[in-house]
């Protein structure tokens, strides 16, 4: 019973927080551990209905991006030799977004447990910090300086590296 039902389930429907429906190939969906878990649970129960997974925390425009990523990575899931092309794609993928989108995407990747996307986002954030001053980092990430003068002085001391 379980085996027959699993073969019949090739697609799932994902609902975004603003009530848009996305039909997703199972292979693509399983890039997200959260979706995969849901599918596995349903299959164990032996449901033959179409599975609907509501994601209350992801808006449709962010979900589109996550699914775009999953689709690309599902294509490469079987052959790990194509890494170079995929890396290039990953690199280009994140470049397109502003920092607000990047934030939502990172949160969505975390929420949907898409580990490789989460890592990619975090690395991208880390890289974008690399060539910026503290002031500039606060600017692009829209963060307020909430340190007291005493803390500021501590930070300055901590970052003065002594030479022999």
């Amino acid at each position, binding site marked *: 019973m379980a085996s027959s039902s699993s073969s019949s389930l090739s697609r799932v429907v994902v609902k975004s927080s603003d009530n848009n429906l996305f039909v997703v190939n199972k292979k693509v969906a399983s890039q997200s551990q959260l979706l995969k878990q849901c599918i596995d649970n349903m299959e164990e129960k032996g449901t033959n209905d179409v599975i609907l997974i509501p994601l209350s925390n992801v808006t449709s425009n962010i979900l589109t991006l996550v699914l775009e990523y999953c689709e690309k990575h599902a294509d490469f899931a079987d052959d790990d030799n194509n890494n170079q092309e995929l890396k290039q794609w990953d690199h280009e993928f994140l470049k397109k977004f502003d920092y607000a989108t990047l934030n939502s995407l990172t*949160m969505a990747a975390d929420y949907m447990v898409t580990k490789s996307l989460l890592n990619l986002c975090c690395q991208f954030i880390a890289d974008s910090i690399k060539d910026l001053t503290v002031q500039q980092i606060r600017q692009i990430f829209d*963060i307020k300086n*909430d340190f007291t003068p005493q803390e500021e002085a501590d930070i*300055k001391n901590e*970052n*003065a590296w002594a030479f022999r």
Partner: protein
Amino acid sequence: MELRSRKFRRKNADWSNLPDELLEIIVNFLKYNGTDYGRFRAVCKKWRNSSPPLSNFLNVDFPREILTYSGRSLHIISYVVCILYPLTQNHNDKNPRHWIISMEEFRKLKMCHPLTDDPIGANNSPKSINSLDFGYRIVDFGVKLRFAESVNDVFCSEGPPKCRMSHWKDNPAKTKSILLKNEGVVMVLLLQLKGALGTFRVNGKLKFNEYCSDCLFDDIVEYKGGVCAINPPGAAWLIKDVEREGCPFSFSQKLSKFMPKLEFTEERQKRKRLAVHDGELYMIVRVSCKFVVFKLNEELGEWERIYSLGDKILFVTYDKCIFVETCYLLGCKGNCILFPKHCFPSVGRGRDHYEDDALLQGAKKPLEIGVFRMGDDSYQLVSSYPELSKLFWPPPSWLWSGSCYSRCMSSEEDEKTASCGDIGSESSSVNQIITNFSQHMKNGKVAEDPSPSSGQKHTTVEDTEYLKFVAEAQFENNGNSVPAINSPHEITDNLATENNFQRTDVSLDLVQHMPSLKQVGVDSPLPVTSSIKIALDSEALEKFQEIGVSSEWIPVLQKIWDKHGNIIERHVVHSDGLLTWALESLAKMVIILQENTGDSLKISQAEYLNSTLADLQMMHFRLDWLVPFIERALAIHKSQWQKNVMMDLETRKSKLLAELHELEEQMVQQEKLVAESLINSALSVLAKGLAEGLF
């Protein structure tokens, strides 16, 4: 269906409230770079509390301590070769310079020259730098083994056992260590023991297991999870099973056959060197006339010679070869090799034939670097390439503030300070040198005052810039602008004035050109170069006019004497060594003049002619017959150089014109598009609200 519930902000992105686990992932990407990590933690409270303060600047994992059986503790310390760059552009500094240095960390940081590993001044450099203001890009990472109390690497401070011949003893790097992370093993190549190889475990007590003493290697690098070692004939072996005992040839994989034969034969084989870049293995070979680079073709198991390095520069140090992409090096052209002197020692017995001496002669210490261009197989001094030499010296002004400079100007006396060519030096010792200098002039009873030429002779273009740089740094404090020192003549004028500050600078400049002045002492307070020593060591000295001179120069000198008589009868030199040097230099100058047309004279040669002539004149050699020839050569050289500059400017102009043209075309296109879109959108809608007629 139960989904994980967490507060999720949908609207405005709030970066200061990222969940801890996400911040942790981000921090993991930053923790191997002290400046990045420091700045991350300085952004806001939440980010700061997400990660512990960094105990080490370069690498969180080092230094690490290991106990030896004698109870002494051994430390594995980390060092990096890195490019420092400013984060914000100073408004005065349109083209912020990058600086390449090597840093090692053992309780404190130590800055070293990236190629020679000489410490970069203890006195003149800042006592600390604010790491929030700059970034660094690591181009190479390595480990060294130290006892706490020693500055030497562990296996060379033990001293080689007497039964075994010491080897390459002039090479500054005595050992080379590689830490294999997943194995927890350090592999050590003992260069001073002919290249014997051994390992020890990082965990537990230090026990060094040497492989068999017959298997000797020239170099090792980390490669494909193991260690690739190369033996003197050029066969590469991959040692994966590092903890095995016995002969490595028996349990390692052979990667390549011997090095292919080259079209030129070398009397003495030199040490072969390895490099890894982008997962590819390279072998670098030096023959006296050029560098030869091979790349491993693993399928065929052969070394394939490559004739171009593409957009890469190869930095050769005494223990490593490092490829760096030119995109990190701000305006430097690739396809060349940078090397310090004698970095490829010969394998056999006896004294090395040092071909680098002539090339690097007269270069000041931090810039004693040769550049080999792969394109045309040419050797030049690094100072011939301003953009390359700026990578090394002087330190960029943005790194520390003007106040540090005033401190270093009055720092204590230190032998090293002068010999390292550092910025700072104690003013009284400098004055003493000046005094010695002028006294010598008086003793010589000269009619014409040679001091203007002495001020002038060493002042090359880069020195002028260097003086400018120091002057600016000095004045930064007051916020005053400084009149730029533009020409050597102006500097000479300044020397004549009693302006103390300017005088200090000029004399510093002299110090740099007389590295061994202090050792030689009052006996001969004149420029002495390393060639003296070599000439004295040499057995091939013959007597010419009762002065020892290497035999190869005698025919030239004889001709000079035949034509112009005894031109040194009025000389004022006390030391025989100096006379030897002087006569040989004279012969060299004549040969340079004979061998070159005006066009072929290199910058280094022109500088050599200029400065040596001044030196010899100061010794009161009679050179009136030679001066016109040198002046003519320099004049031709100068005009040639100016022609080149002109050509450069013209190329730049045409490039800019092309860009301008392109831009204009784009603007025309864009105008068209704007017009079209205006027409397409109904004009009536533009005037009214956008939603007009919607309902």
